[in-house]
C-alpha cells in the first residue's frame, strides 16, 4: 500500500514537472517561432508522404465506390451497354477532371501574371489533424522556393500564410484561424483595418472606428501594408456591422471570398523581400 502511494507521488511529481515544462515550452516557442518551425518541419517531412498516399487511396476508393454504384444501376437496363457507357463515362470524367484542373491552374497563374506576382501553384493534400487550428497542407515545399511567411492566394481571394515548410510540402495557416491577421482596406471607402479569424466561415474586421461607417456588402481587400499579402487581393465581403455605444470600434464581420473546405489548388506568392527565392510556375 505504502509502495503504491509512493509510486503515485512519483507520478504526480513527474506529471507536474512535465506540465510546468509544457508551459515553458509554450512560452518559449511562442517567442521563438523558429524553434517550433524546426519541429513542425521534421513532422511534416515524415507525415507528408503518408498524407499524400492516404489522400490518393481515399480518392481511389471514392472513385471506385461511385463507379460501382453507377454500374449497378445501369446493369439493370443493359449489361453490355452499361459497360460501354461506363467506360466512356470514366474517360469523360477523367478528361473533364483534367480540364477543370487545367482551368483552375490557368486561372491561378493568369491571376498571378495579371498582378505581376511571382508564385508557385500547389495542390492541397491535407488538412489540420486536430480541428483546432485552421490549416492546410500543400504539395510544394522548400525545394520549390516556398518559405515560411509567404502568402497563399486563390483566384477568388486570399487563403492564408505559410507557417512551416518541409522539402516537398508546407503547412498553411488559413486566414479564418484565430491567430491569423491581415492588414486590409474596405475597397470603396478605403477604410483600413485588420482582418482576424473568428470562425469556420467568418472573419472579423477589427480596429475600424465609428467615424468610418462600413456597410454590409462592401468588399474588403488586402492593403499590402503587412508586406505578406500583395495589395488589392479580395479578402471577403462585409456581412454584418454593429456599433455598440460602449466601445470605440465597430464590430464588423467579413465572410471570406474563398470556401476553404473546397479549394484544391492554391498559389503561393512571395512578399517583396522573398521574391528572389521562388521558382516561377512550379507546377
Amino acid at each position: 500500500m505504502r509502495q503504491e502511494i509512493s509510486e503515485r507521488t512519483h507520478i504526480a511529481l513527474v506529471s507536474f514537472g512535465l506540465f510546468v515544462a509544457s508551459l515553458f515550452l509554450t512560452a518559449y516557442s511562442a517567442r521563438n517561432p523558429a524553434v517550433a518551425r524546426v519541429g513542425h518541419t521534421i513532422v511534416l517531412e515524415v507525415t507528408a508522404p503518408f498524407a499524400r498516399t492516404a489522400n490518393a487511396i481515399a480518392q481511389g476508393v471514392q472513385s471506385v465506390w461511385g463507379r460501382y454504384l453507377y454500374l449497378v444501376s445501369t446493369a439493370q437496363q443493359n449489361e453490355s451497354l452499361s459497360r460501354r457507357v461506363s467506360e466512356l463515362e470514366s474517360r469523360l470524367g477523367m478528361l473533364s477532371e483534367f480540364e477543370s484542373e487545367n482551368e483552375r491552374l490557368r486561372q491561378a497563374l493568369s491571376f498571378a501574371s495579371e498582378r505581376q506576382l511571382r508564385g508557385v501553384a500547389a495542390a492541397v493534400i491535407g488538412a489540420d489533424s486536430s480541428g483546432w487550428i485552421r490549416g492546410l497542407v500543400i504539395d510544394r515545399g522548400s525545394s520549390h522556393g516556398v518559405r515560411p511567411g509567404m502568402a497563399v492566394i486563390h483566384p477568388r481571394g486570399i487563403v492564408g500564410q505559410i507557417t512551416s515548410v518541409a522539402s516537398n510540402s508546407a503547412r498553411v495557416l488559413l486566414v479564418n484561424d484565430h491567430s491569423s491577421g491581415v492588414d486590409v482596406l474596405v475597397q470603396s471607402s478605403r477604410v483600413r483595418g485588420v482582418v482576424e479569424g473568428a470562425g469556420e466561415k467568418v472573419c472579423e474586421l477589427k480596429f475600424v472606428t465609428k467615424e468610418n461607417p462600413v456597410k454590409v456588402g462592401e468588399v474588403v481587400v488586402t492593403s499590402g501594408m503587412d508586406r505578406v499579402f500583395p495589395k488589392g487581393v479580395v479578402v471577403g465581403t462585409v456581412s454584418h456591422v454593429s456599433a455598440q455605444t460602449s466601445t470605440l470600434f465597430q464590430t464588423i464581420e467579413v465572410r471570406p471570398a474563398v470556401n476553404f473546405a473546397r479549394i484544391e489548388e492554391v498559389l503561393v506568392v512571395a512578399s517583396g523581400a522573398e521574391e528572389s527565392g521562388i521558382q516561377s510556375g512550379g507546377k
Partner: protein
Amino acid sequence: MRSLLILVIGFALVIVQSLLHGMGMPEWLLPQGLIVCVVYLAFFESSIAGALLAFGCGLLLDLTTATVLGPWAGAYVLAYALLSFVSPRLFVESTVVTSVVTGVTSLFAGSVYLFLAFEYQSLSQEDIVVLLGQASASAIVAPAISSIIGRVCGRSNSRLMNHASLVSAV
C-alpha cells in the same frame, strides 16, 4: 518497445484524423485518437513512463497541428495525472467506462488546451461545439481504439496484479 508502439499507433491515428478532416469531415465530428492513447496509458500504464508517454502524445499533436509547441503536451499530461489517480477506482475493462472516461477526458484536455493556447481570447460558441462534438466522437471510437492498442501493445501486468492482490486480500 511497448511504449514506442503506443506512440506509433498515436502517429497513425493523427494521420487518419488528418485524412478524415481532409475528406471533408467537420472538425466538431473529428475523434481525437491520441486522447484514447492517454486514457489507455492512465488505465494500464500508470507509471512515470506513462506520464512521459502522455507528454509525448501531446507533443506529437502539437508538432502536427499547432503553431506553438506545448499546449497539447501540457493538457495531456495533466489529464493523464488526474486519470491515473482515479483509475484504480474504475472498472477499466468495461467498454462503457472507457467510452465515458474518454469523453470526459477529451473535454477536460480540450478545455486545458483552449486555456493554454487562446488565453487572451474569448471562447466562441463554435469552440464549445467543437469541444463537445470531439469529446462525443472520441467517446464513440474509444473502445475500438483501446482494444486495438491492447492487442498490439499487450497490457501492463502491474494493474492486473494490483487487482489480483486486492481480490486475494478480500
